[in-house]
């Protein structure tokens, strides 16, 4: 299979694409629809994921602005909200029901649709074929399906905003029994809204699995000549292991959600037992709500690594390139990714220390949870080692990569508290947790994603994003990100997902702080729109990549960041099949920067006589 897929595209596509560029389309009737919509080209699919991800990012971020308005000014009304949300904000005040819907959808959208679909989908698609030297993914068709399942999931999820009973409102974790019964008396969002949620997540899992299988197959089978595994850039390692994580863990979510729908629609009792509503015992017997939590977190914890590993890969690459220095401890970086992947399957119950789990079980999960900090720490030290004595080009991607490391440290360290079960008793489901995971997998992953977008924008569009706007975006996001989430650590003990704290003497002391956080959140949201404006403006009007050479066939080449990896050996024009002629062969590792008196040596440059390859 691998032999076929390596040779066939090389001949067919390589030929056809030369024509594409010249505007003739004789051989292959690539209609507009096939080129831009139902495209099987990894670069187009990457763009589709990215733009869908940006759309979801705006929606998810905007939801947070809305519920931060409620949290910051619980006693005020905003008439504009009523015109926007109708009955969900009667009198300009968001209803408590819709507040929970927004929190639920904010989590679902950002975790799955932006930081999984948008991040992995974009960069794995763009970079895997380019960086391993392949014409395209192992199966372009399945790759296309992966996007369209994602699109279908997006349509279903978005449509749930427009139904009578509102979107799912039982938390992104979808715990039964709150989400386990279609009983509107218990929870309005547990009606049709949750069914749509479950359907959308099912489609999403299909998208993630088809995408993931393709990534793994491509990395294992379609590497160009000379591209041994230990010559892969860290991005590719990260994307491949992300895909492995997804393949092994998403089915557990699918199983969990399917059983949940059985309970809801067919009256089974997988998760329900002795439910009493208004004094009436329901007929459910013998199930366990905790079972769902096990299934959910068996995905849920690897999921946070599905989010952060691609960001780590991107940041490793960006830090090295813009430091003009090899990544420090390449092997340790690869091994620590593997260690994270393995251990991430053994930590899920740290989300469940206070569910009444057998206390003896907690010992195992505390051990592995704190153990996973070791490979993470190694990565942090290695990143710092990478910029040490570099010659740092502090452009927007580099700044975001540095910001990523800073956020990852800040958010990762508090994990040591949450992962230790006795401390978690107090911190579980409080703002401390909110602060922790938003910094470590929310803001940090976004920083990784931004680093990637600014860095590879020239690869996507042949143009640069605007630096000035990039700097504005970076500093507001860095300062604002910390302004939102750092003070939340002091709200230790304040429960999450509260509509207001006014009912509690204990929690009601932080009004000025919640207001401050809300203002910061709104500013940070607006700063993201600077990014969006910059992105779309630069697609059409950004500064062009300098052409360093033009080949006879008319293709132009440029390597804007002086990087060693193969994606910059392909023409700026982004042709189908990636390289106009033969696929380059690889002779060295991807981190030969500032070596032997040269600023960089591309991976496709043969070793000079007498040169020893770095191993």
């Amino acid at each position: 299979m691998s032999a076929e897929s390596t040779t066939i595209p090389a001949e067919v596509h390589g030929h056809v694409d030369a024509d594409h560029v010249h505007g003739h389309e004789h051989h292959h009737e690539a209609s507009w629809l096939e080129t831009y919509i139902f495209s099987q080209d990894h670069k187009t699919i990457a763009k589709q994921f990215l733009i869908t991800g940006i759309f979801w990012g705006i929606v998810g971020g905007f939801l947070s602005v809305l519920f931060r308005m409620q949290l910051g000014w619980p006693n005020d009304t905003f008439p504009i909200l009523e015109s926007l949300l109708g009955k969900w904000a009667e009198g300009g005040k968001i209803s408590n029901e819709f507040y929970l819907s927004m929190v639920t959808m904010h989590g679902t959208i950002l975790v799955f649709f932006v930081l999984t679909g948008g991040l992995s989908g974009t960069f794995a698609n763009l970079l895997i074929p380019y960086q391993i030297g392949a014409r395209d993914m192992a199966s372009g068709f399945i790759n296309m399906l992966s996007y369209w399942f994602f699109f279908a999931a997006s349509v279903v999820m978005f449509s749930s905003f427009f139904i009578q009973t509102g979107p799912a409102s039982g938390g992104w974790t979808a715990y039964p029994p709150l989400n386990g019964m279609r009983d509107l008396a218990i929870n309005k969002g547990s009606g049709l809204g949750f069914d749509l949620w479950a359907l959308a997540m099912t489609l999403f899992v299909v998208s993630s699995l088809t995408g993931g299988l393709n990534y793994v197959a491509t990395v294992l089978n379609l590497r160009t000549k000379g591209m041994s595994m230990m010559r892969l850039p860290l991005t590719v390692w990260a994307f491949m292991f992300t895909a492995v994580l997804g393949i092994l863990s998403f089915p557990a979510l699918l199983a969990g959600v399917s059983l949940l729908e059985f309970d809801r629609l067919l009256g089974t009792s997988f998760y329900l037992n002795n439910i009493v509503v208004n004094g009436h015992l329901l007929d459910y017997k013998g199930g366990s709500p905790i079972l769902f939590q096990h299934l959910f977190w068996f995905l849920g914890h690897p999921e946070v690594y599905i989010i952060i590993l691609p960001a780590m890969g991107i940041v490793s690459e960006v830090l090295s390139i813009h430091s003009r220095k090899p990544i420090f401890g390449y092997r340790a970086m690869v091994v620590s990714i593997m260690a994270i992947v393995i251990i991430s399957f053994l930590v899920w119950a740290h989300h469940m220390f206070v569910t009444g789990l057998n206390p003896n079980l907690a010992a195992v999960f505390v051990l592995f949870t704190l153990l996973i900090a070791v490979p993470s720490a190694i990565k942090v030290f290695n990143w710092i080692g990478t910029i040490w004595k570099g010659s740092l080009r502090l452009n927007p991607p580099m700044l975001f990569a540095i910001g990523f490391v800073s956020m990852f440290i800040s958010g990762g360290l508090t994990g040591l508290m949450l992962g230790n079960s006795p401390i978690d008793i107090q911190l579980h489901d409080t703002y401390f947790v909110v602060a922790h995971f938003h910094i470590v997998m929310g803001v940090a992953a976004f920083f990784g994603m931004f680093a990637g977008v600014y860095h590879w924008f020239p690869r996507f569009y042949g143009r640069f994003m605007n630096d000035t706007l990039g700097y504005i975006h970076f500093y507001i996001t860095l300062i604002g990100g910390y302004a939102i989430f750092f003070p939340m650590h002091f709200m230790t003990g304040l429960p999450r997902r509260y509509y207001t704290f006014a009912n509690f003497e204990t929690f009601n002391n932080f009004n000025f702080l919640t207001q401050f956080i809300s203002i910061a959140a709104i500013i940070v949201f607006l700063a993201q729109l600077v990014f969006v404006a910059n992105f779309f403006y630069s697609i059409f009007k950004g500064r062009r990549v300098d052409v360093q050479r033009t080949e006879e066939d008319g293709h132009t080449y440029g390597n804007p960041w002086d990087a060693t990896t193969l994606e910059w050996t392909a023409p700026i024009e982004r042709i189908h099949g990636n390289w106009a002629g033969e696929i380059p062969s690889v002779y060295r590792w991807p981190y030969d920067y500032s070596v032997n008196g040269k600023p960089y040596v591309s991976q496709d440059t043969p070793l000079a006589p007498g040169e020893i390859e770095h191993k």
Partner: protein
Amino acid sequence: MVAFVTFALIVLFFTILVLIGKANELSEDLAGKGMNYDSKSKWNGYFLLAFIILFFISIVYQIRILAPIMIPKPASYHGEVTDRLFYVTLFFMSIVFVLTQTALFYFAYRYNQSKNKEAYFYTHNNKLEVIWTVIPSVVLAVLVVMGMRAWFQIFDVESRDRNPMVVEVTAKQFQWMVRYPGLDGKFGPRIIDKEHITPTNELGINFEDPSSHDDFFADKLVFIKNKPVLVKLGAQDVIHSFYLPHFRVKMDCVPGIPTQFYFVPKFTTEEMREYLKTQPWWNTTNPETGEPRWKTFKYELACTEVCGRSHYGMQKEVVVVKDSTEYMEWVRKQTAIYVPAATAAPADSAKAEGGSTSGGKDAKVVSELVRKK
């Protein structure tokens, strides 16, 4: 109209920003240094350095402003253990935090390309990497050991008091049902079937069993200082979570699965107020009551597992009294759930019913005899 103007202003603002960005880019191109990052790196180096300094200053400021208003010291014995563990972890964390953040931002400043033209080709250092693998491993091992000792101390059934005070808390949307066993110290058993669980007897208490006759629902949780408490937890409809922030107690209430939490309260409500009186922030005036904050301090029970639209409203007061005399005084004021002529009694008529108290008195004599043994 306001919405439209706001929208228009925002669009205008972003347009201006984009134009400024473009103008900067053009002027760079005119000056012929389009892709030259020397001066940009220089400025951003300073910005990053300034950021980290201001960040550290802001953390000190946050500690000064926010630490005093955090939930105060633990009011239970195990809470002191978990808090200590928190601070030990915080100590190690802070060292790592300061060192790594300083290194990160200082290097970003020190080695930006305007200050350091030539990068140093340096791929790895096995000795260094072993060191920074081993040190975190050792620290983490220490934390795991400390954590597990604390954990098994909290959940060690063997070492517990054999005769703790038992309170049964059942959560439902959106309230807590707190049941005390009454003077006999024994809960009436519950039977989970459709015959026993009715709108007037949601818990399915078997009133044929005499031990149920003096059980009562309380409008607050009352504990006794230094008297071990075992809270037996359950839920009717969805998962809730029993959370006593001051006592560092949290345990989910799961429908169909009983859970529990055992702890020992250390300070009475009064003692806690006395302590808070010594804290400057607690002496400031509470704008809502017009009195110093410590005066209205109270322990509270909250729900920490999202349970539906009024999740944020599941509040109940918690009181710790100084001894069993004070406790018994409170118990005697409570009204039993059981109504002798239970044939057609709606729930709220139970309060008006005086007959159950006499039954309670009899039971009290028995229970006090039992306790003396």
